[in-house]
């Protein structure tokens, strides 16, 4: 007897134009791998930079020109290319371009300045010295970045739990590797990578277990089916629903660094090569919030009265812990890490408003925060003492005296983080908080906590400004002259910060129009 075949196997229809940006990115990444294999070593860096930036830009153009008119749920229902995912993917591509330009900074060296010449060598070993002398360079970070971007793009558009998980892993694995590749303080970097990897693996397991429970509940991994199963309350497996939701949310909240799943953030941010930190802080956060939006709004929204209160508590904790702990930091990268935790809390406040304007507000926030963050970390890479990054706060003293432009730009970005009006930080905060106030008492309480936490973080940023401007300079701390790519990156970041602060109407309009999920 022949094996039983499915009676009607239907090939999933694919709307190629809708997913073309993702295809371009993966193609670029694969070409990047080939470049690593075949291009001469001394040519790899420029080739990779051009290839990566070019790939991202082409994908962005394709997305803006063609995919926009091809909104569809495609690939057999596993990928939803709708307004939300297109806006987030576009933002991701834009931010990745900025991030890659920062990674390309060489400061006159052979390869990227931030990355070790040979990741496999033992820190401080003769092998490492030999690699440096031979002019090795880890230009494979560029294809790795492209793979991570692909994972993020899948993550924000995944319409079922399996695809969501695939996206999660595709974006995480390259980041674990990149975290461990810092050129300086390599032990710290490798430790960070290990921590990030172990905790990330844990959270992935949580997510997977939750996804399995939800699959058991609904009988399908599809978010839409899950939603209608909750609505009709069909199954007699009710006990699986809440644990499933909680566990999947834990997996996702880990990625955004929400308290109490935040403990990897400061270590990973501090240890990772600074351009990677900027890229992670902006893009990973964006992708994870995209996934949270889709899971909570499309998938488990009908059940939200059961789990919402828990996330409200997490949001409040995230804001308070992030803000308060940032006060005691003495390392600028850890400080920005805790500030990113607080910002994750602010964004969660917007997410929990559960309205269309909230989606637009959150997406606007992610764009504004991402651009500011990458630019800020780019500046951190430039400030040096004895050749290594001067990341201790005391080394930033008096920077404004000797390097007014660098310090001025950084001060401006800090004011944006603090949410001072006429910067993107303020409009973004307003965009995320307004729907929350509208949503009711719980939202208003969170907003009150949020503004108080903002005041605390403002103290932290302003103290850093004080340090840069009002104190005596430290001997030997210099700001290196950035090359053209990082100058472009910082300029772009600052430009977004200004425009989104002074004239945000156009971007907000775009975000609001895109704030509709396709079911």
């Amino acid at each position, binding site marked *: 007897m022949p094996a039983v075949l499915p009676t009607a196997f239907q090939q999933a229809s694919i709307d190629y134009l809708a997913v073309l940006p993702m295809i371009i990115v993966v193609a670029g990444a694969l070409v990047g791998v080939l470049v690593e294999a075949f291009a001469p070593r001394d040519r790899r860096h420029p080739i990779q930079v051009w290839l990566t930036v070019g790939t991202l830009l082409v994908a962005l153009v394709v997305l803006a020109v063609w995919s926009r008119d091809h909104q569809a749920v495609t690939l057999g229902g596993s990928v939803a290319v709708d307004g939300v995912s297109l806006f987030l993917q576009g933002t991701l591509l834009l931010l990745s371009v900025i991030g890659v330009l920062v990674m390309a900074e060489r400061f006159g060296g052979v390869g990227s300045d931030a990355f070790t010449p040979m990741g496999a060598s033992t820190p401080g070993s003769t092998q490492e010295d030999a690699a440096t002398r031979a002019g090795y360079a880890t230009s494979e970070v560029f294809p790795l970045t492209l793979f991570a971007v692909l994972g993020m793009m899948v993550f924000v558009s995944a319409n079922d739990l399996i695809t969501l998980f695939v996206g999660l892993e595709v974006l995480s694995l390259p980041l674990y590797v990149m975290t461990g590749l810092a050129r300086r303080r390599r032990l710290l970097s490798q430790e960070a990578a290990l921590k990030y990897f172990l905790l990330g693996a844990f959270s992935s397991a949580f997510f997977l277990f939750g996804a399995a429970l939800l699959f058991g509940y609904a009988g399908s991994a599809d978010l839409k089916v899950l939603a209608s199963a909750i609505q009709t309350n069909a199954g007699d497996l009710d006990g699986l629903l809440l644990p499933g939701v909680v566990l999947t949310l834990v997996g996702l909240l880990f990625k955004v660094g929400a308290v109490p799943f935040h403990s990897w953030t400061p270590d990973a941010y501090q240890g990772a090569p600074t351009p990677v930190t900027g890229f992670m802080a902006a893009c990973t956060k964006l992708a994870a919030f995209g996934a949270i939006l889709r899971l909570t709004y499309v998938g488990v929204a009908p059940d939200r009265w059961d789990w919402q209160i828990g996330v409200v508590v997490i949001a409040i904790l995230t804001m308070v812990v992030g803000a308060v702990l940032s006060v005691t930091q003495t390392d600028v990268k850890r400080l920005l890490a805790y500030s990113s935790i607080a910002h994750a809390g602010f964004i969660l406040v917007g997410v929990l408003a559960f309205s269309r304007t909230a989606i*637009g507000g959150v997406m606007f926030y992610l764009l504004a925060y991402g651009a500011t963050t990458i630019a800020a970390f780019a500046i951190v890479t430039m400030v040096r003492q004895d050749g290594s990054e001067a990341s201790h706060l005391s080394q930033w003293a008096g920077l404004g005296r000797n390097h*007014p432009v660098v310090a001025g730009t950084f001060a401006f970005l800090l*004011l944006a983080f603090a949410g*001072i*009006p*006429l910067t993107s930080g*303020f*409009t973004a905060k*307003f*965009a995320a*908080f*307004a729907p929350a*106030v*509208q949503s009711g008492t719980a939202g*208003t309480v969170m*907003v*009150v906590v949020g*503004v*108080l936490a*903002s*005041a605390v973080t*403002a*103290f932290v940023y*302003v*103290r850093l400004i*004080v340090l840069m*401007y*009002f104190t005596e300079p430290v001997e030997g701390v210099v700001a290196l002259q950035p090359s053209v790519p990082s100058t472009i990156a910082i300029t772009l970041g600052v430009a977004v910060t200004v425009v989104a602060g002074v*004239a*945000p*109407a156009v971007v*907000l*309009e775009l975000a*609001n129009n895109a704030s509709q999920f396709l079911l």
Partner: protein
Amino acid sequence: MTSLPLLTLMMVVPVLGAVVVAALPVGSARLVRPVALGTTLVTLVLAVAAWVAFDSGSGTMFQLTETHSWIPQFGVSYALGVDGIALALIVMAAILTPVCVLAAWNDVDEAEFGRMKRYFALMLVLEAFMVGVFAATDVFLFYVFFEAMLIPVYFLIGMYGGPQRQYAAMKFLLFSLAGGLVMLVGVIAVYFVGPGGPDGFLVEKLIGGLDGSTVALRWMFVAFFVAFAVKAPMWPVHTWLPDAATESRPATAVLLVGVLDKVGTYGMIRFCLQLFPEASHWATPVVLTLAVISVVYGALLAIGQTDMMRLIAFTSISHFGFIVLGIFAMTSVGGAGSTLYMVNHGFSTAGLFLIAGFLVTRHGSKRIPDYGGWQRVTPVLAGTFLVAGLSSLALPGLSSFVSEFLVLQGTFMRYKVAAVVAALGIVLAALYILLMYQRTMTGPKPSFAEGEAPRDLSLRERWVVAPIIVSFVVLGFFPKPVLDLVNPAVDKTLQIVGVTDPAPTDASGSAK
């Protein structure tokens, strides 16, 4: 009406001036101060033009209006306009800024070119924000200016102030920011109880258009009031002011206390009273109590100060108590008195801070006991200091008397106890001002080393003092122009709040 966007111009001109000052090349140090002064004078001309164009008899709420859509998604418009109260404050700011620039002429050494450029550029930027905050007729826009204003002040104190400047600047910023952020919640909430739409933040649409529960509106009132109480500053959230005032340069202190703090009292009229009439009535007892405490507490602490700048700062806390008292008495007399007081206080504080500053530059100490007998050395300085002091203690014939009298009269019409207790403040004012004058200026002639005797006021300093003294006398004898300007606006406010003045009563207590 004029077709020129005067209010926008009054912001564009100082900003342009600031850019020009900041962009001056090395070697043009001599140009910095004339450019800055010229800019402020042009702004003053524009302010006068706005005053001329303003029609007190007009029935519309705001004049010289400009409205453009800014962030329609949030309901935000770039909307400017003035009523009498706002215009009076803008004109005051426009007069005080050139005075302050002139007073700050030698604050920064010409050798430190970059530092000097930034100092005057920051002042000009601040002037633009001051105009904007009073002229904004969109709640969101007001908030933007309200917060953005903190940044130049922060740098003015933190980079150019005295030895404790960083502490003072940080304290100032944190107090203001915390208050402001609480207000942000109110700002957001107001939009949702209002009519909404792409221009839902316009004050004109919000007044009378708030449709929320009584409790919600009261909470919003509190959110706004806290921010304004910090700014004003009222007891018990006043503690940042003495530090900020004594650590900043006198010119900065004038702009801070004389103009910026008025945003607090102005905001109480424009937002607390006009947007939340019911909540204002509800909160009146508490607010009046705090105001009376501010009056007496500020005056008592002023008497105990040995630092001149701190003393003047505490007198301001007392005076702000009077202003708040007049606003929340909700009588037309009290409201007009408060508004006039805001203007007068700006000038009298300017006089005190600047002349005390001249004194400090001569002797290098802010401590009152380090002085004595200076009227024999610097008679003009001493004389003008006395006049400024007398104006501050509300001597009849000088400007503050009119406003203080109106405030007390207006308060007495409705809240007799509060008025009587607050009247104590006048007595105490005489004490702290005259004691300070006595200790610094009277007594035996101090001895100085040969050739080091301090010189009397220079020509530049006389030019600084002259407009201030003129304002004392003019507004003291003939406050009518200002009162004509503000009265319609005050009446309009009371009409919105829905109160009428209590009928005068005769001795038997029955209404006539």
